[in-house]
């Protein structure tokens, strides 16, 4: 298999044994980027010079006999809403087209301590608002499994980069499914940790009570490796959980005996492609064969989840995006004659349509006279949704659902916003309840990957990883390579 298609743990072993150098590996990935990037368009910004410089430093450390961490010298890609000093930070928006960040995100600080190599910043839906990566100001990304289809979103660039061999590991962010859904559409593993597991410091805020950073990678072991580096409490984020971070790789055991996995019936009926439902049922059957106990459960408030999310997330976004006013940084309309005119013109020209739609929707549901009917009501329903999951977890260790009710669909499908929002139904409740969720490859429909979502209890990442690992080791789905995924 080509170097650029290997996993972090395989490459770490090769680096440790001095079979390859980090410079060699980094060059192999950039050669691959040169080969396929004009078709995939996964990246907004690349930094080959900086990456090779870091790789050379790592090689010197290895040559000197120093011990290295699993991510040391292994090149990865970062979603372009995560602040990395030295590379522009755009959020795929015109309003930040030339913005130079002045500090590192907490996750980047941690990754730098590991001496990892940063390839560049990946494409995404503008301000992470979308499910297709088509709302990016710069470009649409293609799905390496079928270039005429979307890679999902909003972390579509990170997932497509992994599937196309343009990165070894990547980071995404997940507010309503933005790690898990693109991971599923691209045949990758993607995990959204428990809300609070990872500091949000330096991840440009979309909906602060829902946002969480996590890895998109090639297998469950790599997910555990990246989590080990990025998790932990941070003084800069008061919502980060002050709890011990375990060594997640220790959870990678092939054993689900005695585990109870719940199948929420609401995700297998109307709205879910029957072929996807079938694949998830086969996944459940596999878990049974491996020794788990599978039961049907019900999450009765599921039908309210989508609209509840599309009230709460825009409300938070309307407040968070108030800072983009053209005064201190970013794009500015230079023709306006007064400050208020300048701000309105700047925001109208600087934000794309989906972002403006959500800011306005959020402003409306928070406005005087409508706050109780929409925002407060949604926050109460959010509690009920969370209680559904709490009840299910009295009986189950994990829940199993489709990651998305559909496989990747054609680019430029021209669906109205509400139709697209409805497709987030499987991932949204997990953010609303603050739970950890992982998407793992579990099959194919007409050559397109299908993802299974496992949902865990709060801080239950280890159980999640153990079950995912057990399934992965018993199947071959994660080994499949996208048609644009390069040579085996």
């Amino acid at each position: 298999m080509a170097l650029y298609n290997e996993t972090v743990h395989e490459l770490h072993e090769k680096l440790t044994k001095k079979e390859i150098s980090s410079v060699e590996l980094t060059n192999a990935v950039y050669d691959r980027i040169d080969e396929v990037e004009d078709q995939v368009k996964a990246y907004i910004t690349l930094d080959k010079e900086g990456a090779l410089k870091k790789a050379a430093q790592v090689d010197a450390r290895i040559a000197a006999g120093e011990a290295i961490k699993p991510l040391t010298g292994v090149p990865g890609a970062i979603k372009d809403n995560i602040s990395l000093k030295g590379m522009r930070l755009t959020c795929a928006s015109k309003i930040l087209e030339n913005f130079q960040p002045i500090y590192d995100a907490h996750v980047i600080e941690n990754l730098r301590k590991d001496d990892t190599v940063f390839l560049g910043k990946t494409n995404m839906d503008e301000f992470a608002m979308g499910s297709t990566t088509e709302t990016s100001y710069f470009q649409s990304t293609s799905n390496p499994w079928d270039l005429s289809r979307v890679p999902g979103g909003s972390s579509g660039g990170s997932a497509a980069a992994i599937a196309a061999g343009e990165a070894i590991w990547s980071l995404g962010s997940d507010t309503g499914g933005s790690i898990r859904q693109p991971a599923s559409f691209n045949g990758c593993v993607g995990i959204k940790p428990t809300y609070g597991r990872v500091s949000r410091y330096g991840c440009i805020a979309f909906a602060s009570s829902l946002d969480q950073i996590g890895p998109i990678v090639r297998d469950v072991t790599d997910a555990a490796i990246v989590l080990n580096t990025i998790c932990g409490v941070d003084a800069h984020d008061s919502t980060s959980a002050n709890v011990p971070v375990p060594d997640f790789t220790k959870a990678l055991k092939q054993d689900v005996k005695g585990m109870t996995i719940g199948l929420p019936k609401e995700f297998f009926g109307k709205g879910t492609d029957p072929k996807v439902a079938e694949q998830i049922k086969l996944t459940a059957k596999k878990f049974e064969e491996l020794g788990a106990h599978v039961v049907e459960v019900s999450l009765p408030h599921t039908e309210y989840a989508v609209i509840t999310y599309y009230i709460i997330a825009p409300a938070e976004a309307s407040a968070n995006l108030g800072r983009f006013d053209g005064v201190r940084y970013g794009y500015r309309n230079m023709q306006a004659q007064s400050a208020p005119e300048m701000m309105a013109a700047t925001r109208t020209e600087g934000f794309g349509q989906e972002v403006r739609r959500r800011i306005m929707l959020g402003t409306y549901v928070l406005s005087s006279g409508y706050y109780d009917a929409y925002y407060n009501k949604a926050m109460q329903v959010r509690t009920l949704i969370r209680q559904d999951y709490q009840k299910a977890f009295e009986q189950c260790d994990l829940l199993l659902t489709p990651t998305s009710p559909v496989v990747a669909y054609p680019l430029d499908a021209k669906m109205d916003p509400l139709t697209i929002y409805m497709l987030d139904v499987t991932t949204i409740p997990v953010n609303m309840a603050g739970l950890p969720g992982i998407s793992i490859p579990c099959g194919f429909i007409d050559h397109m990957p299908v993802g299974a979502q496992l949902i865990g209890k709060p801080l239950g990442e280890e159980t999640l990883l153990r079950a995912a690992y057990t399934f992965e080791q018993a199947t071959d789905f994660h080994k499949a390579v996208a048609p644009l995924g390069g040579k085996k």
Partner: protein
Amino acid sequence: MSITAKDVKHIATLSRLNVPADELDKFQEQFNQILNYAEILKKVDTTGIEPSPYVLPTSNVFREDVPQPGVTHEEAMKNAPEEHNGGFKVPRVIE
């Protein structure tokens, strides 16, 4: 309840946005579609239910009141669209 074109313009003003003329009808239609769908929330009995954003038990997080290094003036001005005498320059605020 239905959102009028006038409402859309009012929401835009509150949001510090303009609505381009060619987007007004579409935005109005889409807001009505989404807010009509939100009517299903009326079916849910939420009497006595507390709104709750966080899953982990969080309370106030404090730190020692000791000065920490902050952003330098130079860094703070690095991305300024217009600068004047070391400050951010904006168009006229008061008539």
